[in-house]
């Protein structure tokens, strides 16, 4: 096991403004006409998606980001993942951070399951040789051995999700950033997903889980940050139930 500092994610005074483009004009013609005609001009409005958010995730900790729709929790996840740059403040991450914001990102329907495994894992910065050593585990976990050499356009949505999830949980990240998704498939497969995540956590993986489902956060996380209107309104820990956390 590598020696990482205890704080794997540090979010320090992060603010994120979006510019809302009302009546957005992206064409050259529109820009030129906009110089003369009000109706063609884009109006800009600054929208504060996140304001001065700070928290720390320690090694092996699972933290739930809670809040209603539009409270900024998914934006925060994208900032932690490095996809969006904060307007001010900073995020420090240590170790391998795997964003599980959407399953099967980068899957190409015409490629086979096997080709998509390599393609998808390489988007997360994995070398093909590292994927090769895990390939059999990924296929076994996904229960798709019989279909792995057929194009994923022929997969059912359940098969698709199973493969995507199997890849994500075999990347062995130090921090898993998940947007609502921690299990896919039928009840039996979901159980397997939970077991896999629990075993990764025993090995020191941290989780940042975005959810508006209080029960889901209670099931998986030992602490939580509640956002409202882009601000942290409540933080706390769960004492009681950590059954899945192992």
């Amino acid at each position, binding site marked *: *096991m*590598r020696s990482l500092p205890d704080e794997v994610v540090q979010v320090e005074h992060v603010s994120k403004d*979006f*510019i809302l483009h009302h009546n957005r004009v*992206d*064409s*050259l*013609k529109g*820009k030129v006409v906009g110089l003369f005609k009000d109706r063609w001009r884009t109006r800009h409005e600054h929208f504060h998606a996140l304001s001065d958010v700070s928290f720390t995730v320690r090694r092996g900790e699972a933290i739930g980001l809670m809040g209603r729709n539009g409270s900024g929790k998914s934006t925060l996840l*994208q900032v*932690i*993942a*490095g*996809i*969006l*740059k904060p307007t001010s403040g900073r*995020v420090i*991450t240590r*170790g*391998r*951070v*795997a*964003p599980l*914001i*959407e399953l099967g*990102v*980068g899957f*190409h329907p*015409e*490629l086979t399951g096997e*080709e998509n495994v*390599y*393609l998808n894992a*390489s*988007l*997360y*910065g*994995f*070398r*093909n040789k*590292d994927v090769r*050593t895990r390939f059999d585990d990924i296929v076994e976990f996904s229960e798709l051995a019989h279909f792995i050499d057929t194009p994923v356009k022929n997969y059912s949505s359940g098969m698709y999700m199973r493969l995507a999830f199997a890849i994500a949980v075999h990347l*062995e*990240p*130090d921090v898993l950033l998940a947007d609502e998704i921690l299990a896919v498939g039928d009840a039996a497969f979901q159980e397997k997903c939970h077991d896999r995540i629990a075993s*990764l956590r025993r*090995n*020191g*993986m941290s989780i940042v889980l975005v959810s508006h489902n209080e029960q889901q956060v209670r099931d998986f996380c030992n602490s939580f940050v509640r956002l409202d209107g882009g601000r942290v309104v409540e933080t706390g820990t769960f004492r009681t139930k950590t059954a899945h956390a192992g």
Partner: protein
Amino acid sequence: MAKTLEHIPLSAPSAGGLRSLLAYSDMLRNFVRKDIQVRYQGAALGFLWSLINPLVMIGLYVFVFSDVFKSTLPNYPLYLMAGLLHWNLFSQITGQSCDTLLANAGLVKKIYFPRLLVPISSVVFNVVLWLLAIALLFILYPFLGGKLHPVLAAYPVVLLFFLAFTFGVTLILSVLNVLFRDLKHLVDVILLFLFWVTPIVYQYHRIPPHLRELFALSPLVDYVLIFRGILYSGQLPDWHILAMAVAWTVASLALGLFIFNRYADSLVERL
């Protein structure tokens, strides 16, 4: 856990530079392989299609200029191919460059990876398709009247400079097209214009003398003259043509990298 993995700061927002690009070299490979596979999926002739288009073009121009306009230029097919194949490389890469970021918006918005890989993979994809055509030129070279000159040794270096120039243009266009979505239509028109103001199918000295200086300002005129000098005449053009080509390359690459690094991260919000 993590038995053999080297440590890669997967999502470190500051991760950039050559080292992190190298760590993603397999992504580039998988990406290009995917694009080629998908492009020729189910096509019986597969990869060979990338040859058919330039071959038809060359055949038509040879017919029009040798048989209809009665060009007296010796070895006209070689003359034409030396210019046309490199023009094709440029126009295919830049024609596609406007769409690269938009076409990969789904990826760029969900996963962090060095954004430079998007334009790089588009360039590599087009170069791989083009290799077949240029290989054919070198195979046919002696039969088309080409001679073995020492200047041929300069070809790989000039090609690298040409690709660097094209890559710079790609970076600029891929960013600008996100801000001005109709840029790609403008690029199509400009490419058509550039094709005819570049002496590819006709000779440089057929350009009226008072316009030649103006034409020579175009990087494509410079590069076509250099490529044809190497592959057709067996001598490099004047030093000021070479100097112009180098200057254009440096300018395009510097501006492209600057613009891309400056705007690539904030573009995510506009995709």
